[in-house]
């Protein structure tokens, strides 16, 4: 029985409406993302790229932040960084009416370093603890009420706001353990924050490995750990690496957890300039997201600060993308080597 023509029309129209709803929703997402990337990209590239060789504003990337001094001199508008101003002052002794704007000269080099350190440390911690926990949950544990409780706890951890993590880290690592504002405190706080995602994704990757591989290995006389190490974990690694991509983006970009635990608004020494090697872990660092926050909200806004903000955001985006790209490339390489 062929449907009556009006019915056909109606279903066809419905189909088209639904299709276009989905399509428009996607385009909306695309539009938002494009706007953000374009905005940051255009404004940020003004700071990061220069019109003459080597086309990258190396000063921005390799110098620490300095105060900017803006003044008029002999009809010209001068914008000098702190050091430059002092040098200029040596040769020009007259008084000038300067407006000083913090953080708006120099660059963000220490922030880049600091974020990189924080990411590396916290991801290492999170991956180690996360994968171990995932192995336990997926390979060793039995379904008991305790286990179900653990799983609920992990799920809940994923929903904790990042500022709460920050406060927790502050209370436990900074105050109670006495680590003060330090890399260690930042690593642990950030690591804990990203742990649920790592655990869940790692567990999924482990479960995706077919049971036949485990049984086959055990039937050959392997112990459980041998089986996991040689026949399960290697094949779960692509999935785990994928999960770490999201983790890196989150760890690099969160401000709240590091605000009280690891980040300084301004620091003169670079992280490797420590007197004893153990001091390395107990020092605070500058970090990109926190720097953006400081420049955006702690000081009065003008065109100079805007330059720094967008420049920092742009660099930040590029950095995260590079890290993500590396992770994806690694995953592809692993995946091409084995498939089932």
């Amino acid at each position, binding site marked *: 029985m062929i449907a009556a023509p009006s019915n056909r029309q109606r279903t066809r129209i419905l189909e088209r409406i639904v299709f276009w709803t989905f399509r428009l929703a996607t385009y909306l997402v695309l539009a938002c993302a494009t706007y953000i990337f374009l905005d940051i990209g255009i404004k940020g590239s003004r700071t990061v790229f220069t019109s003459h060789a080597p086309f990258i504003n190396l000063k921005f990337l390799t110098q620490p932040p300095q105060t900017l001094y803006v003044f008029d001199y002999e009809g010209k508008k001068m914008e000098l960084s702190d050091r430059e101003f002092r040098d200029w002052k040596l040769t020009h002794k007259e008084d000038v009416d300067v407006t000083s704007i913090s953080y708006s000269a120099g660059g963000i080099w220490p922030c880049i370093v600091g974020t990189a350190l924080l990411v590396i440390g916290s991801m290492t911690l999170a991956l180690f603890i996360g994968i171990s926990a995932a192995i336990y949950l997926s390979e060793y544990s*039995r*379904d008991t009420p305790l286990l179900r409780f653990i799983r609920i706890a992990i799920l809940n951890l994923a929903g904790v706001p990042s500022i709460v993590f920050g406060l927790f880290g502050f209370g436990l690592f900074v105050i109670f353990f006495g680590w003060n504002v330090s890399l260690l405190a930042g690593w642990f706080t950030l690591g804990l924050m990203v742990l649920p995602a790592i655990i869940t994704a790692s567990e999924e990757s482990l479960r995706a490995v*077919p049971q*036949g*591989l485990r*049984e*086959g*290995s*055990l*039937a*050959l*006389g*392997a*112990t459980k750990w*041998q089986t996991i190490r*040689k*026949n399960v974990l290697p*094949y779960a690694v692509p999935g785990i690496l994928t999960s770490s991509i999201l983790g890196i983006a989150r760890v690099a970009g969160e401000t709240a957890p590091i605000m009280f635990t690891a980040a300084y608004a301004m620091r003169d020494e670079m992280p490797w300039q420590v007197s004893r090697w153990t001091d390395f872990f107990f020092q605070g660092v500058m970090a990109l997201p926190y720097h953006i926050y400081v420049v955006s909200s702690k000081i009065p806004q003008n065109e100079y600060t805007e330059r720094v903000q967008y420049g920092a955001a742009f660099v930040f985006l590029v950095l995260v993308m590079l890290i993500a790209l590396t992770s994806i490339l690694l995953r592809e390489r692993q995946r091409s080597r*084995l*498939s*089932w």
Partner: protein
Amino acid sequence: MVSLLDMPRTLPQQLPPPVDRSAPEIEPAPIIDVSELDFTYGNHQVLFDVTLRIAARAVTAFIGPSGCGKTTLIRCLNRMNDLIDGARVTAGSIRIEGVDINAPEIDVVDLRRRVGMVFQKSNPFPKSIYDNIAYGLRIAGITRRSRIDEAVEKSLRAAALWDEVKDRLHVSGYGLSGGQQQRLCIARALAVEPDIVLMDEPCSALDPIATAKIEELIYELKQRYTIVIVTHNMQQAGRCSDYTGFFYLGRLIEFASTNKIFTNPSERRTEDYITGRFG
């Protein structure tokens, strides 16, 4: 015209004895001794009072309808059921060469090396053919390259796969056909030199030609290994095995030489199952 009667005839001095294809009914030298075995999953008993003896260097087949316990029993022989929560032997014993394999002091890992298993769905590892076979050796601690090379060739020859793969040992195991993959799994199991090889429906996922090759392989292997095979295919049990056990609802209904089971079984239920009257 030469008459047929005039032609010289040479009679054999002694006629060869008639070939007796039926296995002897006398008790064979057993290597596995299952005695009054009860097995339970959680609260659910699946094996009841199973007693049988499996002969060395012969093929024993377990047949029976789905859910009759034959797969459970074969997995008890290398304690693969230990992987399942709540599965345990609740009565009776399994002795292999006189040793009770469920005793607490038994090393399960060692047991599994000596009692190999081939699964229904072939499960080659996502490694090269060479690494697949070397896997068992490496986990046993053998790392010398020459020794592994030797063992790989030996196992592949034993599994009748050497000629087909000898020039592509570093290709992934997944590049082989279904039948070849199963033979690879057999070679992998043989590499650790077990005494007993358990096969859980090894041919159920294979086409007839691959199945025939594996049956031929089983026939050759039984000269050196004891083989226990679970099969749904009655003709296969009839062709391949020397002894057959018929299981139903967790009990061993009849256990005898294959010839007897398939020409004149003692139990009514056995006859009804093998002739396709139920099950």
